[in-house]
Structures are given as structure tokens and as C-alpha cells.
């Protein structure tokens, strides 16, 4: 008895919460410069800081074979300084960059021959130290001399030091398949520093240490992909899942491409994708809006307008054959079942979010069924990944005891079938909606977190998503969820990754 009353009281409370304050929204001011650069601003006078950043609408999906990983590599290069920052002698510095490039042209010509020798079976690895011809070693030595000369003139990591000394924190960036985002938090009295620093690196970037930075990115790849239990297989799985779409290759790029980029390619990339019309900046915190607007004109107004960046035109092909990956790794036996679904802001993406909500959580269907009732899994989860150009819905589970990845796969498919075949209880749907109502507030609370969402959503299509997702998702009905599950989670169209413990029983 007690429980029923309690439950009733709860739904009343939540309904009241939703009514009294409507759904949480954040007032975002926007303006655009004549060069096409867009600004979003949220004033929060209670803060002692301003979190600020910008997004370039470019990611690995904009790349092509030969330059995979360029967007991410670029993100690293944007911290290397400008004509003003990073060197004591800009004239000589720029000369050295050009001299280095001439040597690299020769080096690239030798690698062209190396690849030929590799194709003919004369060498095992075109990039191996022991396969380097004498001429290449000489060029590398000359190149190293230039690097040393440039370093003697350099002011190391000056970009970082200036921000650090000004009391900035959290300065960083990230790259995804669709966007590249740069951000930092500065003391509330120093927003002009942010305008100075960010417009400077967009106005006159100098890609110093271009070739040395490739080594850092290689280490990043070793760290994230090659030295983790499942990293390399996740790469294989993604490449298998995305047949024609550029999501096929990893954000960090294929290693052979990473070793072959030229400065000319990087410059072309910058001109195309870092044009002001392809950028959105955002500020969240304690500042004066009119002052920010004037500073935006003054600093970012200096960037010349350029032609719009090309669109990604390749669409994903319909699946024609069943795809299953079988992997052995130092990992818990596990499975992923992935389906092609819909991109960011697609009308069905909201129903798929609700579907994931029904499946997730301690009281969600996957945990109840796979973990509690059937004892097959230690953990299970579902997610809708809405990217800019396409999306995927994924079900994952980690085995427990003697359960095999195939057992998990069957159990996951059972839960999808139940969604399609059986009615969804009203209370269960209400629970997911209550969580959306609460999450709508939680997502707005932190200044920095709000900034990242604004940039990410605007990079994917439109920042307004932040203010519309809760309302749109709350309008989803049981029938919408069932229809979305039936349409996108077709068992025939699934792509499956099965992971077994290396040396374990099969």
C-alpha cells in the first residue's frame, strides 16, 4: 500500500515541477560578423569567470584517403603559435619553415620510392629505420639541423604560458568526426585576452614543429588505440560498420597518412575549413554583452571572409551482406550490436533517445533482464550516437560467468523485440521523461559544460537543439518509440562485434 501511495505522490510532484517552471531553457544571445563568423553569448553574472571557445565545422568526415587524421593533427598545430607568439625572430622562423619544407619535399619523393620498393616486396615496411636509404638519412640530418636552429629562436609553448600566467584554466581542444572545438576559462576581467589570443592564432597561424608533432600524435595513437585492450578492434568495427561514409576511418587517422602530410596540404585545409563563415564562437559567464560584441568586431572582424566549405556528399550505402567481427583480446568477453540509425536533430532521433532511456539505468530493461534476471552480463547499455551526417544505435553488454558473446547478442535482440511487440507501460515512459526534465536543468548548471554543449551543437547543426531537445523529447509517445525501434533496429540489418578473451574458451 505504502508504495502505491508513494509512487502516486511522486508523479504528482514531477508533473508539478514540469508545469511550474515549464522546461528548462537558457537565454542565448547571438550575433554575426560581416565575415560570417557567428557568436553565441550567455551572461551569468554570478560567476567569477568567462568560459569561452569556438568550433570549426570540420572533423575527420571532411577528410579523404591520404589525409586521414588531418583535422585532429590540425588541432595540435593550432597551439604552435603565430607570427607574434612562439618565436623571437619571425623573419628567420618563416624562412626556416620554408627551407624545412623543401627538404621534406625531397624526403617525400624518397618515400614514394620506398612505397614502390614495398609493393615489389623489397622491403617489409616503407617507414622502418633499417629500410632508410643513405640519401634519406642525409636529408633527415639536414632537417634536424634546421629544427635545432628554429628551436633556438622559439619561445616554447608561449601560447599556453600567456594564458596560464593570466589565470586561465582548462585550455584545451578536441576533435571528433564532425567538429573541432577549442576552449578555455579566463578570469571575468580578462575576456579581451581571449579575443586577442584566439583571433591571433586564426589570423596568422604558423605551423611550427609540423613534423615533430607527428611523433606526438603517433604516441597519442599508441596510447589510445594500440595499447588498450579493445582499441584496435573498435577501429576495425567502425571501419566495417561504415562502408562508404567517411566515418569509416578513425579520427586520429591511418598511420601511413599521418607520416605523409605536407605543409601545403595543411595550409589548404586551414583556408578551406577555418574560414570565419565556418566558425561559431561562444562565451558563457560574467561579462558585458555589448563589450563582447564590440571586441568581437574589433578582433575577429579582421579575419577575411572566404568561400563556404564544401559539403560531405558521400552517403552511407545500404547493407547488402551480414557483417560480424570476431576479435580476441585481453578483455572481458563482450558484444556490441550496432544499427544504422539517424543523424543529429533527425525527427526520429528523439524517439531513439527515449528508447535508450527505457533500456538504460538500474531499473532499465537491459540491467533488469541481462544482469538481474538472466545473470548473463555484468553490465549492459544502449546509446544513440547522433552525428552530423548519419547516426548509429548501439547495444553493448559484458559477459559474466560462462555466458558467451552470442548469448548476450540473443538477449539484447530479445529486448529489442519486446519493445516492438509488447506495449510500453505508461509509468515506464513517464520515468524516462522525468529524467529528461531533471537533466534539462542539470545540463545548464555548469558554465563550462554549457559552453561545450553550445559549441558542439552549433558545430553539428544548430545550438538551438539545447533549448528544444527536452520539449521535443517529452512529446515522444510510446508509439513513436516502437515505430523507431522497428524501423531502425531491424535484426537483419545489425552489425555485430564479438569479443573473446585471448586464450580463453570459445
Amino acid at each position: 500500500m505504502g508504495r502505491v501511495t508513494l509512487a502516486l505522490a511522486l508523479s504528482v510532484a514531477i508533473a508539478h515541477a514540469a508545469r511550474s517552471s515549464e522546461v528548462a531553457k537558457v537565454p542565448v544571445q547571438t550575433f554575426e560578423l560581416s565575415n560570417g563568423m557567428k557568436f553565441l553569448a550567455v551572461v551569468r553574472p554570478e560567476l567569477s569567470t568567462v568560459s569561452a571557445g569556438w568550433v570549426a565545422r570540420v572533423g575527420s568526415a571532411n577528410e579523404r584517403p591520404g589525409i586521414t587524421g588531418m583535422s585532429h593533427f590540425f588541432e595540435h598545430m593550432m597551439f604552435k603559435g603565430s607570427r607574434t607568439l612562439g618565436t623571437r625572430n619571425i623573419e628567420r622562423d618563416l624562412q626556416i619553415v620554408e627551407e624545412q619544407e623543401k627538404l621534406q619535399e625531397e624526403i617525400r619523393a624518397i618515400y614514394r620510392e620506398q612505397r614502390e620498393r614495398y609493393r615489389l616486396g623489397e622491403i617489409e615496411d616503407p617507414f622502418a629505420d633499417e629500410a632508410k636509404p643513405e640519401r634519406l638519412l642525409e636529408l633527415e640530418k639536414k632537417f634536424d639541423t634546421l629544427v635545432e636552429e628554429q628551436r633556438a629562436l622559439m619561445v616554447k609553448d608561449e601560447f599556453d604560458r600567456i594564458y596560464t600566467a593570466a589565470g586561465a584554466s582548462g585550455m584545451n581542444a578536441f576533435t571528433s568526426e564532425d567538429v573541432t572545438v577549442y576552449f578555455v576559462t579566463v578570469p571575468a576581467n580578462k575576456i579581451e585576452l581571449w579575443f586577442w589570443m584566439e583571433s591571433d592564432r586564426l589570423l596568422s597561424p604558423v605551423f611550427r614543429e609540423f613534423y615533430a608533432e607527428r611523433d606526438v600524435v603517433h604516441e597519442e595513437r599508441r596510447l589510445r588505440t594500440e595499447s588498450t585492450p579493445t582499441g584496435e578492434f573498435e577501429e576495425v568495427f567502425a571501419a566495417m560498420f561504415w562502408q562508404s561514409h567517411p566515418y569509416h576511418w578513425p579520427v586520429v587517422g591511418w598511420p601511413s597518412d599521418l607520416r605523409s602530410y605536407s605543409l601545403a596540404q595543411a595550409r589548404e585545409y586551414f583556408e578551406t575549413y577555418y574560414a570565419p563563415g565556418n566558425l561559431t564562437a561562444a562565451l558563457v559567464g560574467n561579462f558585458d554583452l555589448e563589450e563582447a560584441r564590440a571586441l568581437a568586431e574589433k578582433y575577429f572582424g579582421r579575419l577575411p571572409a572566404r568561400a563556404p566549405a564544401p559539403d560531405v556528399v558521400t552517403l552511407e550505402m545500404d547493407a547488402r551482406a551480414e557483417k560480424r567481427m570476431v576479435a580476441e583480446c585481453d578483455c572481458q568477453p563482450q558484444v556490441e550490436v550496432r544499427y544504422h540509425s539517424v543523424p543529429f536533430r533527425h525527427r526520429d532521433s528523439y524517439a531513439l533517445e527515449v528508447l535508450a532511456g527505457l533500456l538504460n539505468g538500474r531499473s532499465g530493461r537491459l540491467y533488469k533482464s541481462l544482469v538481474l534476471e538472466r545473470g548473463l552480463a555484468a553490465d549492459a547499455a544502449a546509446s544513440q550516437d547522433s552525428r552530423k551526417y548519419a547516426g548509429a544505435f548501439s547495444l553493448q553488454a559484458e559477459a559474466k560467468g560462462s555466458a558467451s558473446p552470442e548469448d548476450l547478442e540473443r538477449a539484447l535482440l530479445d529486448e529489442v523485440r519486446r519493445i516492438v511487440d509488447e506495449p510500453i507501460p505508461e509509468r515506464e515512459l513517464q520515468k524516462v521523461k522525468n529524467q529528461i526534465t531533471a537533466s534539462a536543468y542539470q545540463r545548464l548548471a555548469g558554465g563550462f559544460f554549457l559552453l561545450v554543449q553550445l559549441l558542439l551543437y552549433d558545430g553539428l547543426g544548430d545550438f538551438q537543439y539545447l533549448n528544444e531537445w527536452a520539449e521535443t523529447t517529452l512529446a515522444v509517445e510510446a508509439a513513436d518509440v516502437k515505430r523507431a525501434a522497428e524501423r531502425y533496429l531491424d535484426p537483419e540489418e545489425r552489425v555485430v562485434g564479438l569479443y573473446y578473451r585471448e586464450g580463453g574458451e570459445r
Partner: protein
Amino acid sequence: MSTVWLVSVLLAQAPAIPARPEELRFDPFHFEVPDAARYRYELPNRVTVYVVPDSTFPLVSLRIQLRQGSYLDPVDKVGLAGLAGSLLRSGGTESLDPSAFDEEVEFLAARISTFGGDSRSGANLDCITPVLDQAMDLFFEMLRRPRFDEARIAIEKENLLEAMRQRNDEPGDILGREWDWLLEGEDFYRSRRMTKAHLDAISRDDLASFHEKFWRRENMVVSVSGDVDPAAILKVLESHLTDWPGEGAATEWPPPQPAHVPRPGAYHVEKDIPQGTVVLGHRVPRWTDWENPERAALQIMDHILGGSGFTSRITQRIRSDEGLAYDASSSLSFDSLGPGSFTVSFQSKNATVALATKIALEEIARIRSEPPSEEEMATAKASLIETFPRRFESAGQIAGTYAGDAFIGRSHDYWKRWRDQVRAVAPDDVLDVARKYLKPEAIVFLVVGKWEEIAPGDADGRARVSELFPGGVTHLPLRDPLTLKALP
């Protein structure tokens, strides 16, 4: 057209853009440390509560901290405190079975969790204001009248066993375990690990009696932040805490100190991966004197040496100059309950592990041999002072900072002194503390990676592990994930 006109007017009025960012002038920004007394309360039953109201959003956070944790585990039941904490959350309550409890919590869209540390354990509640009363009812029923449901205990144990099986999968997990053992020994409460035998030995009675004995009002610190009225929330808290046991459990505090004496030198665990993952460093003494100005000098040293990203020496040399690692940093951590540590961490391809290590050792030697430059001092000080207000940026941070003080027994005045202490540090003070606290002769070096590639060093012959650690390398065995006994 009108936009263009507006822009030109603004440009005409605005001062020109300075050639360098240092030439920018900023309005002063005054920050005063919020007065802790405004937020501090003591309930009639002697529980300390911090309430920091903020009604910007209809959100409330509540946190309870207790002086208990794995240091109270019996030697044959390592993991008991942690398991008691997780079953408290997942094992249901007297009136609600586990599934019903989860259902109620998730229907309210509340987040209820427990945490179990070495010496600090507790519970968190986050929810929207309209459901606060109901969420608190559930939260306190869970904390005071847990069910410890047998079926959930079995599931939690199975899950822990699966987690144990993964102990040798991630290089970082192997590194962390062996590092704790090298520094503090295998039996110390902070470094010991649960085995299958420990797990099998823990019964429902053990969990229930651990809860009865150690989840008490004594030494409890509560913090609340968000959309609440202090007077109202204090009344509710008091009523929820009345039937809790108060004084009585004579727990040892502070927890014991490690008996183990670390043996300096080089250690290695074999793993077939392309990149070695490395930690090197040593213990630093337990820190209890929060007025000691050396603390500020040490934070500046840490900032300059490897604690502040690209601006710090170790990151610059290993990552920016040499491209040897993606992540390379150092960290000096102090603990008021036991030894702290000084560590340098990085991951580098096997062949350049020795070279990156050599550079890290050079930088440790350098900071002990000459004072930092004026520029480095100025950057570190400005950064520490100007980022300081961020510690008090939100109601949640203020509540967390002051509740943390109360937990470890530190005066809130620490924060009032802090910026002046940083300002007063001279370059020679940094040199002095570096010489006093960094101990090259005590360094323990540990790498997880492929030894046949690590040992020869880099292709140019710039460094080899055997030259850096002439005492030789101890190859540590991989451990059986369930027994932690050495594998052949």
C-alpha cells in the same frame, strides 16, 4: 550597410589592438574568500552541516562524509568496507526490495550513490527541488535501514569477480597496483587488494555488522548546496538523523601508517604493447601542518616542474621538444592521513622509455640545483592566485571545500592565508623545498611494457635503462588476477 557603418564607428573609438597580449590592460577583479561561518551549522546531535543556498536552478545536492573505509577491513576480508557501501545502495531497504528502490529513485529522476574510500566514505544525493522531500526519505531509509538483499549480494560478488578477471588487461591497472605495492607494501590498507578468497569469505552478516558499526553520526560531515532554505533543510536533516547511533564505535583515527620501506631502483612488468607506461617517484611525508608556508613553495615547484601542462618543464621537454609522449607530467600530492607522493608519469613507445626517463631525471636534478627564473615564478604565482576564485565558483564548490576542511580537521582560515603565502614565496624558497622534499636517491622507477624493446633504448643511443639505474632491473611477475599470486 548599417552594420558596416556601426563597425567603423566602433573601430574609430576603440583603442588599437596592442601588438602583444601582455600590453592589454584589465580592470581589477576583486575576490574575497566567502566567510565559512555563514554556511556552517551544528545540529543539536552534534553533526556538522554546511549549507550553501543558490536558487539559480531548481537543483539540490547533498553529501554525507564519514571517517571510515577500507582501513577498517579485517585482513582476511579485504574489500568489506567497499562492498558494504555498494550493497547499501544496491541491496534494497526494509520497506522496498532492491528493484522497487531503484524504480522509485529513477522515477524521481534522483541520483543516489554511495562511495567507499580508504578512509573517507559516504553518500550523495542529487535531485530537482520539487522531489527533494521524497528523495531524502529514500536516501535516509537506504542509509539507516538497508536490506542487504542476499540475491543482490550474490550478483554484486559475481560482478566484482568479473572485474577482478580484468586486472591484467589495461597496462594502467597493472602499473597502479604494482606502484602502490612498491611504495606502501602489499599489506597496507591503501595498497592492498581484494582477492577471490577475501570475496568468498564476506557474508551478509559481515556487511550488516560493518554498516551497524561504522555508518554512524560520529564525525559525520554533511554538505548541502543548491535550491534550499537553510533553516528548513536543517530541520529535515535533524529528524532524519535522530535515530542514528551516535558515539560509540571507537575507531582508530587517523588510520595507521605504512610499515613498508620502499626499495629504490628500476622495476618492470612485461606486457606485449607498443608503448611503455611509466611512473617514477617516491613517497613524501604525511602533511598535517596547514600553516607551514613550505606548502605554497611546494605548489609553485610542482607547477614549474610538471604540474601545469605545456607551461611546465617536464611536459615541454618530453612532449614538445622531443615528441616522446602524448601525456607527460609530474605531481606532488600531500595527504593529511598518511604519506603523500611525488610522481612523474608518461607513456612512450618502448624504445624511447629510457630517453624520456632520462629527461625527467634531469629535470628533477635541475630544479634541485638552481632557483627557477623570475619569469617562471611570476607565471606560476599568477596562475595559482588568479585561478584561486574558481575553487569557490559555485555553491557546490563552496560546500565541498569547507566540508573537506571539516573532514580532515583543517581551519577554514587556510584559504584566507593562502594567496598571501603564495605571493611571499621567493625563488630560493622553491630551491630549498625542492632540495628538502625531492629525493633522487629514493626514486622508484616502474614500467609496464615490452622489455626486449625497452632495454636497448632509442636508435640514437641517447639513453638506456641500465645506465640510469645501475643497480639493475627487477622484473616483477604478472599476478594471477583472482589470487594475486605470482604467475609463472
